[in-house]
């Protein structure tokens, strides 16, 4: 909670910076013949940013590294007194020290060494906190004075502030890139290890997936049991079924809400549909497995079809329902923002509403709609629970929606949470699947981007 106090102190300084900066600008504008470059608040923001941002960063950095330093200190002390201690024991010892220092429950009666270590530790923490406070506040004050001094009519305060904001924006967009890099890195090493055990092409083009068999016979991959094709085929089948349900229902709902429905109905229906996206997938899983799948099986039997009790159809359809709001709400928003003048133009040509929608509004809103569909599809590809519960886990290479299939994601999850062994191809396969899926969807997205670029209509 001491940190919180410091945080508020810095916040206070930031606000103070704003007020002083603005005040100085006001004073300048009063008796300076040169007009100020920017509006007054920007000078305030300029000072505030200097006051707040660096010292907050210092504080954050300090808080991240300080415990490590403190522990290192305790550790070095301990090593001095007892050279034989292993690093592992060290962490446990430090745990004791930290527990003792913070008044937590202890595993044993503290001995003198522990007590003194704990004392040292708390002392260090106190000093460190004090130092952090001094440094942060000093920096803040320093920044306050220098930036106040810098304020003069020619200072491009707005540009400076905007520069900071745009740097923050750039950092934000970097996070997406970093995430990707992180994902690739957290998959690639295991994947490479996997390809040590299983030939790349067997994995890529094999048509048989049965990770267990390979493992038990201890001659991994020899039987070609790591063929990813059935998984990708299953993913495609289920995603396809899912989109067959979700695209028409979602798009038509969006059209109805944005173009036909009254305000009240729309205000009601849109959030209601959005609830569909928030129902936990377990619920959908039960629904698919216990309501939809038996229904299909029985109807199939009546029609003389053989429908397995776990079917791609049931899972895909229920998944389609789940992602309806992704399409309906997002498409509704973009269609809603197509300018009214375009609708007017079409109506005035004697077009019916539906013609206006299909020929004018949807083309104009196409990039947004495609984005929504891609997003929905992405969710479908990534979904597990429904498939596990309703489509099963058997990797069948089939295009028949009435049979059980499984998907890449499901296999990744079951491989990762199931009984695993160190370095077995079975566990590593999950990483390879993850990476391969990543590549496949990447290709899909590149193609989608190209297509959207081609058909984009820019209005106004």
């Amino acid at each position, binding site marked *: 909670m001491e940190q919180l106090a410091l945080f508020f102190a810095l916040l206070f300084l930031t606000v103070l910076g704003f007020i002083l900066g603005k005040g100085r600008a006001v004073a300048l504008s009063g008796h300076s013949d040169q007009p100020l470059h920017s509006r007054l608040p920007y000078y305030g923001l300029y000072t505030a940013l200097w006051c707040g941002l660096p010292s907050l960063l210092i504080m954050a950095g300090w808080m991240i590294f300080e415990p490590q330093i403190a522990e290192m200190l305790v550790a070095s002390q301990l090593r001095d007194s007892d050279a034989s201690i292993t690093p592992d024991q060290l962490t446990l010892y430090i745990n004791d020290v930290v527990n003792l220092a913070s008044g937590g429950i202890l595993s044993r009666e503290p001995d003198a060494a522990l007590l003194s270590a704990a004392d040292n530790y708390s002392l260090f923490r106190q000093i460190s906190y004090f130092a952090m406070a001094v440094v942060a506040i000093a920096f803040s004050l320093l920044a306050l004075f220098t930036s106040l001094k810098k304020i003069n009519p020619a200072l491009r305060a707005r540009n400076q502030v905007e520069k900071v904001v745009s740097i923050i924006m750039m950092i934000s967009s970097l996070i997406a890139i970093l995430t990707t890099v992180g994902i690739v890195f957290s998959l690639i090493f295991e994947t490479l290890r996997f390809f040590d055990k299983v030939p790349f092409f067997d994995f890529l083009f094999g048509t048989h997936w049965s990770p267990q068999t390979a493992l038990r016979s201890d001659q991994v991959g020899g039987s070609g049991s790591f063929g990813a094709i059935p998984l990708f085929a299953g993913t495609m089948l289920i995603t396809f079924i899912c989109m067959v349900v979700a695209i028409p229902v979602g*798009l038509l709902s969006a059209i109805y809400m944005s173009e036909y429905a009254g305000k009240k109905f729309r205000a009601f229906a849109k959030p209601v549909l959005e609830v569909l996206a928030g129902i936990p997938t377990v619920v959908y899983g039960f629904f698919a497995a216990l309501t939809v799948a038996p229904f299909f099986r029985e109807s199939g039997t009546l029609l003389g079809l053989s429908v397995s009790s776990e079917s791609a159809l049931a899972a895909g359809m229920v998944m389609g329902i789940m992602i309806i709001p992704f399409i309906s709400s997002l498409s509704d928003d973009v269609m809603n923002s197509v300018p009214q003048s375009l609708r007017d133009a079409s109506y005035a040509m004697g077009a019916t509403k539906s013609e206006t929608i299909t020929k004018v509004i949807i083309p104009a809103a196409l990039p947004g709609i495609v984005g929504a569909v891609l*997003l929905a599809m992405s969710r479908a590809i990534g979904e597990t629970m429904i498939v596990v519960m309703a489509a099963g886990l058997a990797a069948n290479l089939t295009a028949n929606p009435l049979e059980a299939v499984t998907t890449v994601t499901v296999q990744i999850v079951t491989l990762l949470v199931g009984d695993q062994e160190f370095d077995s191809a079975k566990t590593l396969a999950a990483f390879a699947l993850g990476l391969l899926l990543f590549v496949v969807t990447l290709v899909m997205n590149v193609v989608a981007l190209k297509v959207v670029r081609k058909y984009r209509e820019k209005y106004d």
Partner: protein
Amino acid sequence: MVKNMTDNTPPLKINPTLLKRRNAAEKRFRFYGLAAVMTAVLVLCLLLTSIISKGYTAFQQTYILVDIRLDAESIDPKGTKRVEDLAAASYKGLLRNALREQFPGIEGRKAKRSLYGLVGSAADFDVRDAVLDNPKLVGTTATIAVKSSDDVDSFYKGYIPRDVPESNRKIKDRELAWLDTLAADDRIVKKFNVDFFTNGDSREPEEAGILGAVVGSLYTLAITLALCFPIGVLTAIYLEEFAPTNKWTDLIEVNINNLAAVPSIVFGLLGLAIFLNFMGLPRSAPIVGGMVLALMTLPTIIIASRAALKAVPPSIREAALGIGASRMQTVFHHVLPLAMPGILTGTILGMAQALGETAPLLMIGMVAFIADIPGSMSDAATVLPVQIYLWADSPERGFVEKTSAAIMILLAFLVVMNAIAVILRKRFERRW
């Protein structure tokens, strides 16, 4: 130039068959639209009905009124009447005595066990709480309501039919007779199940509560929202309004779209590698869960925000720029407010997804049995969907209704969370 272009085509003749077709198409289209909305609403109703019909009973709990002799010797041998002493005493024996007195003449360990099994395994805590509430009870014989076991509870909620062969019934004939006696004595009462809202997780259905998971979800989603909303919106603005259009921006765009398709469990792997193993943050902590979910939600918000920004007509940007607003000002004063509905939709969908997600949390240790209610963002915690997942996977029958009830809580959580965004979104909405 052609001078005489006099057009001799007759005025538009409306082709009646075509018009009929067009009108029919129009009607059909409208109907399809309504049907689509209705289908979706219907399915939702179906799901909700099945959840509610299974789960509403969880908000009640069956209690058995037992006359307990609270003799001072065993509760408070020193006679201090101090709360700590009263709390530390064991009430199990007293409760068992009371049950035996209620049904005298029961012999044999098996019979005794099934008698004790009428009350919940933590029923002695009900007795303790009653004593702590009113220490004057010590030394008297008091009638105290204690929780029944989950089977008895299920029986009174109608989940265990009476008229089936004994072997198919969880409540055996002997227990049935006892219960009937108790019921005849008006000793069976149903009360609102407060504990469900104030307890953490438990292995006993009658003790299990949702609070731990709610608090965990609250912490986790607070972090998620605090991270993914600003980062997502800023990224979208940067890409849509500021970034130069070149290969790099395309790369980032494709990349973000691609992140949306990464299975959520892979985000868990990422979190494990970066936040736990590299940064050394604690396992099972909402702070890590929040960050992982934020990474997972980010693409949704970015994609929705970009679509919304793109939809704002350029003339509005030009108007602002023409007055001397900077691009940043144009964006924040005009474009962003107009794009807000779409951005909020993205946030609603993204957060809904984050609220219902279990798989990534598996990797970072949040799929766990955690009985204590988390007190901070770095304490071990679960979240609502995990709680649902765990309960749905428990053998005890009593968890069936709890599972549904937990789903109801999750949906309530969702509705409350969305409500703010939905109201905001309505305020920002306008056509131009």
